[in-house]
Each structure stands twice: as structure tokens, then as C-alpha cells.
């Protein structure tokens, strides 16, 4: 991304800002435990969890900030937060 003078931005720039770099803990999804309830997708503040063709849920690590709400709320405890190594 080239720098915009005065850090000015058109709407929709959130797509261009790869907020995944903020992450300290990475959510790891265990599809063995997952009941496909979709709570993680509903509560993700970044809107970066989507359903795959088999009905499981996968995060987009390009945008996931690692807030951990999905892991805290998952009724099956199927999401584990693991420290990032950078």
C-alpha cells in the first residue's frame, strides 16, 4: 500500500489494511470438536470467520486480530488460542 498524504482513505480501506499483523494469539479451530453452530462467525468483531463447503468455520488470518472472542464463546471449546511466533 502506497502512503496516502495525510493518511487519507476512501471507504472500504479496511480490506486493504491487513490487521492480522496485530495478532499475538492465533485461534486454532478443531473440526473434530466443532458442532457447526456458527457462534464464532456470529460474534467475530472483524467478520473474518466464514463457513466452508462442509459447514465448518474457518478464520481469515489476514484480518484476524486474535481477540479470542470466538475461543471464549465456542460452546464446544473447539477453538484454542496459541501464541504467535514472529
Amino acid at each position, binding site marked *: *500500500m502506497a*502512503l496516502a*498524504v*495525510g*493518511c*487519507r*482513505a*476512501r*471507504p472500504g*480501506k479496511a480490506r486493504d*489494511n491487513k*490487521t492480522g*499483523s*496485530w495478532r499475538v494469539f492465533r485461534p486454532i479451530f478443531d473440526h473434530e470438536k466443532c458442532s457447526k453452530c456458527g457462534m464464532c462467525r456470529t460474534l467475530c468483531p472483524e467478520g473474518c470467520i466464514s463457513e466452508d463447503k462442509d459447514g465448518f468455520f474457518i478464520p481469515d488470518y489476514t484480518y484476524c486480530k486474535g481477540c479470542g472472542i470466538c475461543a471464549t464463546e465456542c460452546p464446544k471449546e473447539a477453538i484454542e488460542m496459541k501464541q504467535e511466533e514472529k
Partner: protein
Amino acid sequence: MMEITEGSHAVAEAVSLCRPQVISAYPITPQTHIVEALADFVANGKLDAEYITVENELSALSACVGASAAGSRAYSATTSQGLALMFEVCFNAAGMRLPIIMSIANRALGAPLSIWNDQQDSISLRDSGWLQFYAEDNQEATDLHYIAYRVAEDPSILLPAFVCFDGFILSHTYEPVDMLSQEEADRYLPGFAPAERLDAADPISFGMYATPEYYLEFRYEMDLAHKRAKDVIAKAGKEFGSLFGRDYSALVEGYRLDDAETVIVTMGSLCGTVKDTIDEMRAEGKNVGLLKIRVFRPFPTEDVAKALARAKRVAVLDKNISLGSKGAVALEIRDALYGSGIPVRDYILGLGGRDVRKKDIREIVALLERGEGDQFYGLRKEVL
């Protein structure tokens, strides 16, 4: 046309000739007469501008930020505590690259409360990203407003600017001022036409967040703009000179400097007192000269080094103090002369409106020649 007028009114007149579209300010001594006059101009239909009255300076500069982002030429004026209240907005205006011009009628900062002059207020915002011009007299104070707008609005710069002049000493003093006509002002300063502006039909946000991967680069770009501004100021000052006969191409200006062994460096109205003293001392055979700093940000380090290369000793007169360190101007001069071996001594003086007279300049030259400096000058030992 030559007028004999109060400094504040001369500045208001010049600002009006710059055709600001939005003015927002809050009255504060000694800036009040400027904004009073501008409010009159707007109310009487002399100036076609939106005058936004606000509850304090934080709002005044915030209104200017919005106006400038929306594509208007914006103006404010303040001093001292008012400028202190604008601290946050100052950094934002610069970071959003909004070419707002603000007159600063320099005044001391409290506590203790003082309405009188020194330059601590604008100096304390030296790192905010605003360009800083300092005027010696009311002619310069008015002329620098046109130049400031020209430089600030240059697409390669896009930075806000302070035009600073000493409170009371200039703002409340009647001096002859050669005022441009509206036609002349328009010829020098075309309308503000930014490439990007707030527009509901084509939305854009200014000053978005920057993650650690980008923030450093944004500050770097601002610093580059400051460095480019040195040339842009020189060009704008030269063009002003070719049109109106008063050349402001030099960011620092020497007075009887060429063969001077002892050089005094200072900014603002004090330069006039120093020049008069130099004339007297020269008549007595003393090789004394002045280097006047007209532009403090960006700081013209190379110009200073060149101008002072032949000096044997330098006294810097600072109407400010970075408490626990030195005067802000002296630090810059020492940096410019680093490695040259030329001794630079700092004198903190004139704070809170203390008069600096010709005999004080003579005394400082004597101190400098004895190698005594880096001190507060003129302390009243009987009250300590």
C-alpha cells in the same frame, strides 16, 4: 499603500487580503484585536468568509481542521494558553496535512500567569509539524501571512503554519506598513484548490489510523515535506520580492554580518533592538553582526552554518527555555555549528515580558567576549 496602523489590525488586514473562507478563533490577549477586526470585516461584508464562533481554542482549531479538510482556506489566531489548549489539534492538523495558517501573538505560558511577551508558546509546539515563521516588525508580520499560505498550500508541502510575532511589542504597536491591494494579493495568492477534500458525494477520511508498520513512514514523509519547504519558502519569498519589492527568500538574514567576529543570533522583534545596538557598536569600531532567524521550522541548519562560518563567537538570545536544558534556538545553532569549534553561548532573556534594551545587548556582547554564557540574563538577584 502605506498605512500607520496597529500591528494586530495590519495582520487582520493582510489576513483578509488572503481571502480566508473560514475563520475560527477565540479571543485571548494579546491576539484579541486581530480576531475582533476580522469579525468586523465579515460582519460588515468587507470579507466574504464564514466566521465560526466557538467556546474555546480547542474548538476553534478543530473547526479549522474540518473547514480545511472540506477544501476551504482556513485561518485562526491565538497565543499562550490558547495555543496550549490546541496542542492535540495542532498535531492532527499537521498529520492530516491541512494548510491552515495561524497567527501567534507570542506570549508567555502560565503558571505564573503572564499576559506579556516571550516565545515559549510557539516554541513549545516546535515538534508539532507546523511551519514556524517569526517576524521582526509589523511589515514582516503582515507579509509572512501571504508567504505562509503560498508555501503551506503548495502541493509538495501541505503543512500548516504559524506566523509568529511578539505580543504587545508588535501586536499593539503602531508602525508604518505597506499594505498590498486586493489585486496584488490575488496575483500572489491564488485560491486554495486541494486535490482531495471532504465531499459527501465522494467520501474520504482524513488522518486514519496507522499501524506500527506505517506510522514511522508517515512521520518520515512529514519530515521530508519540511525539508522540501526550505526551497519552497525561498522561492515564494523571492517571488514576493520581485512583485512587491520586499524579498523574503532568505530563511535566515544577516545584518552587518559579513565581517562580524561577534555574532548575535535571535528571532522576532528583538532583532530590531539588536540592529540598533550593532549600529552604535560598529560606530565605536566593534565588529558585531546579527543573524536573524526568520524560519524556525523547518530549521535552516545549512544556511546557519554557512552564515556563521566566519564568526569567532556567537551569542544566542532565547526568549524561551527548555527547562532542564537550554534555549531552543541555541540548541539549533549549536547543532548547525557542530564540529566548527565556534563557541556558541546561550542567554535566556526577556521571559514574561521583561524588557530587553540596547544596554542589555551591549552587556551580553561583553559577557560573550569574556566567555560567560549559557545562563539566564538579567536575573534580579535581590528577589532570589
